[in-house]
Structure formats: C-alpha cells, structure tokens
C-alpha cells in the first residue's frame, strides 16, 4: 500500500523566510509528494529577486530526534533566476531540520538572509497514534510565528500525507492568522480514500468519504477553528496532468491595532498592591490600566483590554507577607512580560495576589498544625494557588447569567513563567480543546500512580452535591467506585441503599466509607446525592 511506503508524514508548515532585502519574500513551501509515493519533494519558491542577487543557498541541518546525531549538513546552491527549485527528500531527512537561507550577490557577498526555519519530518507510522502523540505541532508552527503580517505564507496541504485531523485544522487556522494562502496540491479521489483510511480507527477504508466531503469538512473545520476568517473562494483546477487541484483562498481577519486598554477611573488605593503598581507604572500599556475586581475568594487585579476581548489570562501570584519564604521575588520580571503578552493577544489579564479566602483554612492548619517553615508553608500556599487556578477557570467560563465572566478561552500562567515578546498566540491553537506542554513518561507514570491511589476521591468529592432531604432532585444516582480489598462494599452498599431507597428509586453502586472519609465527606443519612452520574468512573486494578 502506498501509505505504508510513504516515507514522510510531512508536517506541513512552510514559512516565509524574510530576506534583508525588503519586498523580496523567499517562500518555502511544504514538501509534498508529487506522485503520492516516496520520495517527498520540497519545493522552494521565490519572488522577483533583488536586482543584485545572483543566487541563494540553503543550509540543511538534520538531526535524529532525541539524539545529537547529525545526519546531514549541506548547502544547496540555487540560481536566483530559477522560479523555483525542487529538492528531493528521502529517508535520511527524517528528523528535526533547521534551514537557513542566504542570498548572495554577484560579488559573492551575502546581501540577505532568512531567519531559521525549523521543521520536523517523521516516517509515516502505519498505525495512527493518538493525536497527542503526533509530532509536536509547535515545532512546526514556531517558525511561522517569526513572521508578521502582511507577509504571505504559502502553505501546501496534502491530505494524502496528513489527513484532516483536528490538529491539522489548527495548523491551518494558525497559518491563516498569518495571512496565509493555503494550497492543496493534487488531490484525487483515491488520495482521499487513503486519507480516510488513516482517519478511521481501527484502520479500515471508507469508500464513502469523497473529495466533496473532505472539502466540506475542511471548510467547516476552518470556520470552526478560525471563525473570523472569511472563506472567499475555492475552486478546482485541472491541469494537463488531469489531477484535480484544490485552491483555497481565505481572507484573514482584519488585524486590529494594539488594544486600547481600558482605563478605569481608579484611585491609587484600588489599583492593587504597591509592589504591583511599582511593577506596572511607567511600563508600556500598563500605567493606569489595573482594575481591582471584587471576589469573594481573592484579590484580583485585572488588566482589561477592549470589551471585544473574549480571552482571559489568569496569573496566580499569591504571597504571605509574614512569611518571607513565600515571596515571589521574580515577578518584577515575569509580570511585565505576561502583561505585554496579554496586550499582544488581546486578552484580559487577571493577577491573583491575595490569599484566597477559601484557602485560609488550609493555611491555618499548616501553621497551627506544627508544620515547619519554610517548606510546609510554601506547600500550603502553593496548594491554595493551585485551587485558585481551577476556581478562576471555572468562574471565567461561566456565563454572566451564572455569575461568571463568560470568556471563550482561558490561559493560566504561573508567575514563575518568563515569556518572550514574540511568543505565539497560544489561544489560536486550542480550538474547542485544551493546550499545554505534555509531560514525559516519568511524570505520567508518577501521576498515574498517585491518581490511582486516590481515584475514588475524585469520584466522590468532585461529583457529589449534597442536598437536604426536602429539596427535590430529578436525578439521583450513586457514584461508582471500585472498592479496595479492605473495604466491605456489600455492607456499605446495603446501608446506603437502605438510606436512599426510601426516598427515591435509584441505581446504587458501591461507595465505600473508607473512600468517603478520605475525601472529606461522608454522605449522612437523609441527604440525597445529585448529579453523580455525569460520567462513568472506572478504576484500574
């Protein structure tokens, strides 16, 4: 099968390399198979050259992922008079690549150069991996963010090599933000059938997945992931080869100017802590923009962009003045940077600086319980900050009717994070999902062990809402928790059933008292459990 022989699943990106000479964009298109079989061809396009340019060179640096083994380093010399160049890529190009282009003039001087393009080629895996195991998309997208509109990115998308997964659509939407034109090279019905083959799990062909459906799906996906984009036109082009070519032209959304920061009329006393003001005052876009918000849980300081913004960045930075070990002596560096990032991404920045009220109990226990400075106080405080993150997320996405803020997306950033000014707009990447750095195996294993040890707590604590007996409940379903050998599930189940069956017909599953105690709540007699069955819980042995 072709797809098994195909050497590369090409991460698609390609980027405009910006020569020093203005208005002479050097465009790298993504490799794509011209015939649907290996090898893959990298096509390099370039626009009218500067008058004094004679040629350019492209330097490849290829390494094997996870090693420092350098497989190839070579310079390709290409006459500037050529409209494009094709470079055949074979197996040895599998891995991480860096490409840098230099433009030379007739006198052998470098008159321009590009920034470095990083991309990744991997051998096609015949068994599709879960999405989060695909090569890290940001390895590809990173380079595109070196660019800024209105330069053009020409992006070749080949559904044969890269079936239209949600991640693919995110790549596209990200590129659209860069004023990209998407070019889908030869697409045939057979290609689509194979693309569909990859999409299905378990592997099976889907003869009913037609080209039209693919286009429809792609179109829907683009609109879903990047709703501001205006899909202007798309058409098929039949060339002499007889293959269909699909071109999609998309008008990117208008790039608005830097946000006019909302400047509430705040007295100095309401503009956060003196330390915060000191960090903020005089900095670009920061002066006079902090707004103190009322919250039953914590003191919040918000940097508010225009009302059209629907994104929120939460930065928990909680300290306890009485305990020096809880200080955050790096925020004078990290906070201004995340502030700039919030402005760049048109986001509201919410800085949580005071101890959340709900955490006071934790903290008091940490102090009065004989915990030792400095570590335990730090742990207690960290614990509170962590909870504040989750609380903030939930509050942020609730609608105003529910007492929430109604944001469409939330980013949480620790106050220990230092971000570069040109960091990508990560909001653009997540669509309706989530995004973050996926940890490696050792962390997964650690968390897996930990979670397993207390898995029942999540079930009971997080899902049970206790209602007094007189309050009607339309749904009563006891949660499922797999008992440990030391528990007595039959007895416990019987007890709970006796308690609850008197009140409502319900389905009961065992919840052990041991787990309930460990989770801090034990349903007492006469109380109903509501909304427990939102999800099914299963536990590994």
């Amino acid at each position, binding site marked *: 099968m072709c797809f098994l022989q195909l050497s590369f699943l090409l991460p698609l990106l390609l980027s405009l390399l910006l020569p020093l000479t203005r208005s002479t964009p050097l465009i790298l298109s993504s490799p794509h198979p011209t015939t649907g079989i290996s090898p893959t061809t990298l096509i390099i396009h370039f626009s009218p050259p500067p008058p004094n340019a004679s040629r350019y060179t492209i330097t490849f640096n290829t390494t094997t992922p996870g090693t420092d083994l350098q497989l190839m380093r070579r310079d390709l010399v290409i006459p500037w008079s050529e409209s494009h160049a094709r470079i055949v890529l074979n197996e040895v190009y599998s891995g991480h690549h860096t490409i840098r282009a230099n433009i030379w003039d007739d006198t052998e001087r470098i008159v321009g150069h590009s920034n470095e393009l990083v991309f990744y080629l991997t051998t096609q895996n015949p068994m599709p991996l879960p999405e989060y195991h695909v090569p890290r998309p940001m390895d590809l997208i990173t380079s595109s963010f070196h660019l800024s509109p209105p330069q053009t990115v020409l992006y070749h998308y080949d559904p044969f090599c890269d079936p239209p997964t949600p991640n693919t659509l995110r790549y596209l939407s990200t590129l659209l933000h860069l004023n990209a034109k998407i070019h889908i090279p030869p697409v045939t019905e057979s290609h689509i059938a194979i693309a569909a083959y990859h999409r299905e799990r378990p592997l099976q062909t889907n003869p009913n997945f037609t080209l039209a459906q693919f286009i429809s799906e792609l179109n829907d996906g683009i609109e879903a992931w990047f709703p501001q984009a205006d899909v202007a036109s798309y058409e098929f082009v039949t060339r002499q080869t007889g293959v269909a070519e699909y071109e999609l032209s998309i008008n990117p959304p208008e790039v608005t100017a830097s946000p006019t920061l909302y400047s509430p009329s705040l007295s100095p006393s309401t503009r956060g802590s003196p330390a915060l003001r000191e960090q903020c005052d005089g900095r670009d876009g920061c002066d006079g923009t902090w707004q103190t918000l009322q919250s039953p849980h914590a003191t919040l300081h918000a940097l508010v962009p225009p009302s059209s913004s629907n994104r929120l960045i939460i930065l928990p930075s909680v300290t306890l003045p009485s305990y020096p070990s809880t200080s955050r002596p*790096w925020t004078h560096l990290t906070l201004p940077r995340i502030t700039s990032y919030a402005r760049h991404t048109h986001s509201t920045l919410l800085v949580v600086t005071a101890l959340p009220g709900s955490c006071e109990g934790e903290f008091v226990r940490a102090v009065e319980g004989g915990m030792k400075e400095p570590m335990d106080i730090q742990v207690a405080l960290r614990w509170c900050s962590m909870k504040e993150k989750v609380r903030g997320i939930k509050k942020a996405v609730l609608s105003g009717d529910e007492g929430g803020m109604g944001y469409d997306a939330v980013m949480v950033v620790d106050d220990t*994070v230092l971000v*570069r000014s040109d960091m990508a707009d990560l909001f653009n990447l997540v669509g309706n999902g989530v995004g973050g750095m996926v940890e490696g195996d050792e962390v997964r294993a650690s968390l897996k062990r*930990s979670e397993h040890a207390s898995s029942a707590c999540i079930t009971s604590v997080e899902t049970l809402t206790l209602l007094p007996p007189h309050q009607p409940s339309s749904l009563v379903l006891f949660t499922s928790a797999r008992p440990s050998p030391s528990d007595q599930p039959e007895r416990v189940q019987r007890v709970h059933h006796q308690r609850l069956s008197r009140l409502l017909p319900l389905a009961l599953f065992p919840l052990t008292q041991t787990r309930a105690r460990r989770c801090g709540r034990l349903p007492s007699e006469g109380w109903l459990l509501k909304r427990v069955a939102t999800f099914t819980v299963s536990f590994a042995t």
Partner: protein
Amino acid sequence: MTDPIVINTGVFVVSKEAAGELFEMWNGLIDMKLYGDQGYVNAMLNRVGSGIAVVDFGYRYNWVGSFENVNRRKVEDISKDEVYAYHATTGLCLGQIESGQVGIETYQMMVGEEALAHRVDWVEGVEREWTEKGL
C-alpha cells in the same frame, strides 16, 4: 489501559467548551494527592475528556526547571534560542551534588532562601539574555 495525558498547567490554555466539561462538577475541593490543579486537571482530562482535543505546545512553550538538570536529556535537541517560555519550577532547585552522573539520586532539592535565590538568578539570567537579543 493507555498511559494518561499529563499536561503541565504552568502554561495551560483551555477553551470554554473544554473547561465546561472538565470543571463542571468541581465543587471547590481537590485531592492534594493529585498535586493540586495539576493532578485535577489531568485527572479530569483523562477521565471525562475523551472527546476533548489536546494540543501539545511542546517543550518550547513551557521549559520547566528540570530540563536544566535531571531531564536535560529530553530536550537536548532543542536550542535555547527556540524557547519561548521559561518556567522556573521547583525542579530548577535540584542541585547536583555528585558530578559525573545524571540521575535523580545525584541531586538534592534546595529549600528556603537558597531555592528562592537560585530561581531568581535563573530568571534574571534568562531575562538578561533575552533583553540583549531584543526579545
């Protein structure tokens, strides 16, 4: 049973749709054994979020402290010039106490003022380098 996805929530983006699914049932309590939000977010992600798309930003967008010591090998193929977000986690405070080897047993966690000072030094060093490069 497949390994769970574990996202470091130091830099974490969640859409409204996904947040609703992940946090709808949250009542203000988190089991501390689950490492706070870190564990809760990931537990919910793996338990109820089977339909939620996960985008891996990659290490460049959350370069944690342990990449400077015990987990250095994981990021050897990434140039520091490609890192967009440095995260001064407590993993940074793993001071190597035995040279010549790389392994958890050769490290010791700094605490208190020493740890604070070390994290500050690290952040200041990155800031200085970026400033010099105009980043």
